[in-house]
Each structure stands twice: as C-alpha cells, then as structure tokens.
C-alpha cells in the first residue's frame, strides 16, 4: 500500500555540520509513527523539511506516491500536511478564536464576521471533543489546552498528515492522556501521524512504528512490537563509530578526598524532584538519562541558573547563599551550558573575550586582566582544545557550532573552578574530537577538579565517570558506582527494567 507520506534519502547540511544523511521515513494512513532521537540527532531538521520550513539538499518526498516539492509552510499546508511545533507557535495574547482562524476568518462584505469565526473555532475544537470559551486569550489556558488548540488549527478539512513535535513535553499525566486519546481518534479517522517525542512510555502506548535518528542518520526503524524498550534505548544512546577508550580499572579518587560540592534536597516545583548529590575533589560524576529526564535542570539547579525552591548547595563546606550563577562562580563552580547559542556565547565578542569572561567576572570589574594575560589564556585554551580559529580576535559567532562549544568550555576552565559542571560537552563536536574531550575530563579530575558531566553519550559517561547518577522523568532514580558502570547497567536503570 502506498504510504501517505514518504521521504527517501533526505540529506541536509548546514555550514559546518551535516544535519541529515540519507534518511528514509514514511508514514501510512491511519498510523502513528514515532520519531525519536537525542538533541542534535536531526529530528527537527527532518520535520522542517517535511513541513516546508527548510529546503532539503537531496532526496525525494512523495505524497500518496506522487513526487512533490514543498517550498514553504504554506505549500505544505496546501498539500495537506499540518504541523504543531514544540513551542506551540501560536499567539498567546490573542483569543482562541483569533488563533484558530488567523488568516482564514470568514468574511461578510469584506469584513470579518466574528460570529461565524467563533462558530468555526468551536466546530474545529469539537472535532477534538474540546469545549472551551473561545473568547479568552490563548495564553490564559494551560499548555495542554494550547496544544489542543494548535492541533485543531493544524487540522484542516483536507489534512492527511499531522506532524506533532513533542506535544506532551510540558504536560502532566492527565493532560498527556488527553492528547494521546486525541491522537487515537485521529488515527482511527485515517490520519498519518508523525509523533516526535522523547517519552519512551508514550511511544509504547500509542506508536505503531518507531524510527530512531542518531547524528543525522537513521539507525533503526521497526514496528513497535518488534522493538523492545531496552533495544530502543540502546539505539538512541548507542555506540559511536570511534571507541573513546577503555575505562581505566583503578579509577577512583583517594578516600580522604575532600567533598568539593554537596547538594542536599535541592529541587524545584515542576522542574526536578528534590535530590541529593555530592562530588569529591578529583571525582567525576555522570548524569545519565534520556532527553527530558532532567539532566540540564539538575545541572542548572546546582549552579543556580534555575533557582531551587528547596535544598542547599555547599562548596567545600561553604554554603552558597541565595543560589545564583554569580555566587556559584565566586565559590568556584562553573557551568558549561548545553545550549551554547542561547546561553553560552556572546556572538559579537571575540574568542578571547568570551574565553576570559567568567574569570574576569570573578575578579570584578576593577581588576581587569591585562592584554597579554588575556592573550596568553586565550592562546593556551585555543591550543588545548584545538579550537579552529585563525586567531583569538575572531567574533565567536562566526565559528562553527562545535568550536563555539569549545570556547564556552574554555571559558569555564579558565575561571579556575573547583567544581566544573558540563552539560553535553560533546554536543556538536565532531566524532573524532570526542576522545579529546574525554582525555581533558580525565586530566582535569587528575588535577583535583570535581566534575559533573550530564550527557546523552553513554560511552563517554562510561569512560570518565567514577559514579553515575541516573535520572528518569525529573527524578533521580539511582546511582551506579565503580566497576558496575557499564552501558548495559545504565540503560537498564534508565529503562527501569
């Protein structure tokens, strides 16, 4: 039977990174096909190609067997492809009616007839069995309801393919049931649904077929029944092409090592359940878990980038009062964030300036680092991390993603921390350089630094960690230590098997 939508051999490159390499993906009518993969795996890119937000470099797209070109979101909509993005992408300040009918308000003599628009809005919501006050601003409703409105908008009379990008990402259990129920109804009506998610359990509840992307490639595709969760998780966090080195068997900090950082009962409502975590000097603790399990949130709560509403953090016995990044850096904690573009780099400033920024902030504005001092630090770091830049004065925004990541890492290192928190340190760094990062982490811990490494790359965690804290669904669910740290044990703990 011809698939409703079929993508074959899709490739897409951005400057410096190959986002998709020859990906095949197809969805039948009346089917829910789940698309999984960690951040940077290529999911968003594939979706954007499917919905016309991006142009592909190579490959074909067929609808009901017909070859098509999708040049813009509008064209995708005309072809019957509806999309609901992760950020919802509606207008929270406008009413539900206005959001549902934007661009297609029914008109009478050229003027909008709001009476008919309201009826249209109610009717669309009714298709999803939703009945709400359509005149209230969209933003006054919960995220779940906003999601429903977004789905209602995406469903035109002639929509055959519906793409849902993380529809349940911010929902609680009841709200999730609601959305999944709607997906079942739509499937029964013959829609082809693409379901992007990181919630494994939801995949097993509703998906008919699963595809896994990794580093831009399709690493696995099978009917749900033929893909047990253990296999699925290992596909997602699977082995890299290169080995990153065996884990030294005698790795462990000396027993009398001082506690560098201790977080007790730290948590925040709706973000992370309270957890305890401590790091000794010279120790490397890994944070493992799937996307959405709270890795970044744990890191940020400890650093103070997200303000905890309970718990205490202390560095070398000294409590950090009023958790804030400024205080943390003063006490010798540094964070290398996951999203370097939004939170890491100052794109218009030079490599040198970015590298010295945290150290300079620690020293205060009245004690500037001298020019030669800055250059020395910058050059050292550029060499140590092999940052590809002609010189230290180049604006960081012009470097490739991987090198930007290195600059942010360099900044954390230069601030001479006692505790270093790394969130996805190898995200966006080419495979060959992963080993370098591992070596670096080992060197740093040998020098007495305590490290917390949050990562989706299991092999790296296995290679560097003395202990691994495992997260699932915003809770710390287990800890694995010493020789027990293997890919299998981590996967098992994550999967809850």
């Amino acid at each position, binding site marked *: 039977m011809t698939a409703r939508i079929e993508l074959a051999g899709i490739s897409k490159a951005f400057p410096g990174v190959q986002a998709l390499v020859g990906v095949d993906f197809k969805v039948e009518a009346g089917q829910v096909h789940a698309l999984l993969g960690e951040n940077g795996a290529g999911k968003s890119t594939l979706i954007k190609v499917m919905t016309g937000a991006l142009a592909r470099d190579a490959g074909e797209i067929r609808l009901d067997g017909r070859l098509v070109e999708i040049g813009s979101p509008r064209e995708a909509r005309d072809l019957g492809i509806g999309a609901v993005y992760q950020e919802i992408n509606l207008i929270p300040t406008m009413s539900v009616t206005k959001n549902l009918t934007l661009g297609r308000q029914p008109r009478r003599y050229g003027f909008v007839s709001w009476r008919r628009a309201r009826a249209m809005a109610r009717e669309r919501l009714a298709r999803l069995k939703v009945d709400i006050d359509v005149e209230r601003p969209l933003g006054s409703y919960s995220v779940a309801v906003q999601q429903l409105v977004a789905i209602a908008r995406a469903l035109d009379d002639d929509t055959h393919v519906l793409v849902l990008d993380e529809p349940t990402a911010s929902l609680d259990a009841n709200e999730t049931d609601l959305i999944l129920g709607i997906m079942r109804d739509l499937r029964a009506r013959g829609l082809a649904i693409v379901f992007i998610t990181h919630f494994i359990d939801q995949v097993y509840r509703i998906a008919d077929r699963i595809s896994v992307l990794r580093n831009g490639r399709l690493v696995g595709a099978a009917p749900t029944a033929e893909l047990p969760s253990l296999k699925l998780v290992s596909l997602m966090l699977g082995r890299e092409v290169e080995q990153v080195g065996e884990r030294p068997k005698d790795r462990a900090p000396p027993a009398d090592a001082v506690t560098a950082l201790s977080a007790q009962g730290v948590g925040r409502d709706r973000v992370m359940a309270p957890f305890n975590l401590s790091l000794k000097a010279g120790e490397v603790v890994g944070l493992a878990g799937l996307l959405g399990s709270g890795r970044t949130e744990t890191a940020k709560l400890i650093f103070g980038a997200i303000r905890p509403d309970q718990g205490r953090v202390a560095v070398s016995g000294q409590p950090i009062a009023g958790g804030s990044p400024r205080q943390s850096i003063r006490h010798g904690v540094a964070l290398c964030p996951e999203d370097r573009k939004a939170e890491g780099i100052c794109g218009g400033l030079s490599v040198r300036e970015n590298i010295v920024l*945290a150290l300079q902030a620690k020293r205060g504005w009245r004690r500037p680092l001298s020019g030669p001092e800055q250059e020395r630090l910058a050059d050292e770091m550029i060499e140590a991390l092999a940052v*590809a830049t002609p010189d230290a004065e180049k604006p960081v925004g012009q470097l490739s993603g991987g090198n930007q990541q290195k600059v942010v890492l360099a900044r954390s290192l230069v*601030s001479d921390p006692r505790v270093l928190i790394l969130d996805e340190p190898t995200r966006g760094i080419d495979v060959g350089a992963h080993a370098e990062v591992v070596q670096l982490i080992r060197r740093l811990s040998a020098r007495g630094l305590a490290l917390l490494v949050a990562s989706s790359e299991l092999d790296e965690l296995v290679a560097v960690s003395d202990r691994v804290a495992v997260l699932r669904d915003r809770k710390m669910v287990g800890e694995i230590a010493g020789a027990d740290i293997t890919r299998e044990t981590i996967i098992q703990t994550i999967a809850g098997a």
Partner: protein
Amino acid sequence: MTVEPIHAATSGPSFRARLGATLAHRTVWPVLALALILIVDGFVSPGFFTIRIVEGRLFGSLIDILYRAMPTAMVALGMAVVIGTKGIDLSVGSTIAITGAVIAWRIHAGDSHLLILFLALGVGVLCGLWNGFLVAVLDIQPIIATLILMTSGRGIGLMINLVYGGTNPSFLSPLLQSLSVGHVGLVPTRIIVGAVLFFLLWLLLRRTALGLFLEAVGDNARAADLSGVGARFVRYAAYLISGVYAAAAGVVLTADTHTSDPVSEGLYIELDAILAVVIGGGSLSGGRIYLGATMLGALVIQALTTSILTSGVPPEYNLVVKAFVVIVVLLLQSKNARGLVVRLARARAR
C-alpha cells in the same frame, strides 16, 4: 560531521577580499562620510580649511565643527554606552534641562561655582540612577523607562526655575563660562573638556573590565549572567554614565547661553546623539561600543550643519541633507540593501 581545518589557508586573502572586509567594517563609514563632506566643502566653500589665529585663539570652519559638536558628542558618548547594553536613553535632553535649571538656581543662591559644577554632575547621577532603577530593577523596557523622564524632566526644570522666581533666569559665571566658551591657549576649552571626557570614558571602559561587561550584557545578557557578570549592576552603570555625560553637556550648553531655558535647551539632542552612535557603527540591538567612531559620528552631523552654513546653501536645507546622509549610511550598513544595490549594478552591467 565535518572535521575543521586547524590552519587558515597558507595564501593570504586577496586584495579584493581584504578591501571588502575593510569596507564592511562598520567604523570605516563615519570616516569616509566625514572625509567626503570635507572634500565637498573644499570645493564648494573656498577657504573652508583655513585656520586663522585671532585674538590668541584658533578660528576656522574646522574649529567651528569641533566646537559646536562637543555637546552632542558628550551626550553621544553616554548614549553609546547605553545602546551597547541593548538599551536607549531618551531622557538626555531633559537631563540637560534640569542641569541648567539647577545651575542657575544655585548661582542665584550664592553657592561656590566649583561646587555648582559638581552639583550639576550630581543631577546627571540622579537622573541616571532613576533610569537605571526603572530598567535594571523594575525591568521596564528602556525606551519606555526613559520616556518618563523625557516627558516630565523639562517640567521639573521649569519648576526649579520658578522656585526662586523667574522664567529663563540668566546668570554670570566666569568659571562655567570659561569651560564652555573660553580657550586654553589656542584651543577652545570645551574641545579639551570633550577630549578629557572621551579619555576618561575610554579609561573606564577599556582599562577596567566594565567595557567587556557592558558589551557582553548587550550581546547576550543570559550568557553574561551565566558567566557571573551581574547584568543588573552593569545596566545601572550604563544609565549612570549616560546621565553624567548628559549633565556635562548641560553644563557646556547652559554656560554658553548663561541662561536656564528648560523648554528648548538640548531639544532633540537625543536624536542627534543616537544618530551619532549609529553612524559610528553602533547597533541598536546591543553589542560593541565604538567610542571613537561615535565622536566621529557627532562630528559628521555637525560637519553637515557647518558645511551647509558656509556653503551659502540656505540653512533650511540642513535637516533634509542630514536625513539623506543618515539614510545613506543606514542603507550601506544594511546587508540586504547592499545586496540589492549590487544586484542592480550587476543587472545593469549585463
């Protein structure tokens, strides 16, 4: 994923590429603009470049440009700092008005003129703290926050004038007037004052880490915060600087007319200051602060005015010419506009 080459290509970039890179550098434009204006002056107004010494001081159109540009340049310096943090300060004109009123008031009250100088700068500090509070603490958008002082400031100045009885009170102050219209040797004092203020700000920004922090906050406030730079403190500092520099300009302007005229003193100077910053390469979306280029931008604006005056073109044309220059500079700085021009040129060449 691709592997990055560590070295740049061994052969250097071509001349064309280097020329392109230089032209694209934002600070080149004010220099070119200024040079262009002066060259045109040389043709249109004979004797434009002559500098004479009369009564022990320099005279000439070039000196005139420097002289008249100083107040705007001072305000523009403070404005450049604020714009660097992704903000804006519309209240500088009102700060000038209040400064003038305070000066006249305290002179009439009999304070020492040196003290009054400091009081005047103190007005700038207060205005800056007010704006800083609204922006950094209350988190109000800068354009709205500074609009409040812009609306009410001149009224405050008028009230101060009335307090001790008088509309547009005038005064006599040898100290202040010497700063504004006097001269040190051959050079008008205010040019020296302007240069000193520029130098002080340069020291503050480039010889401490404040400049780095200001630019980091303007570029990516979130990243700066995560690096431990306190964005709140930095923004406060920016508006403080803007207030003080506006007050300094207020001293110069007020002493020049030796009258306090809160309604029209420094009228529209914020617009000229913002223009000077933009011509100097600053971006309204924050980031780099180009102090020197901003001074050049102020000179460009003044050069336009002076050139029109000396060329015999009716002064009414001043604003229109200014508008055109601004538009051209902006279009040149816009990537899309440059691309369009290039495309049109290529299409015509075929």
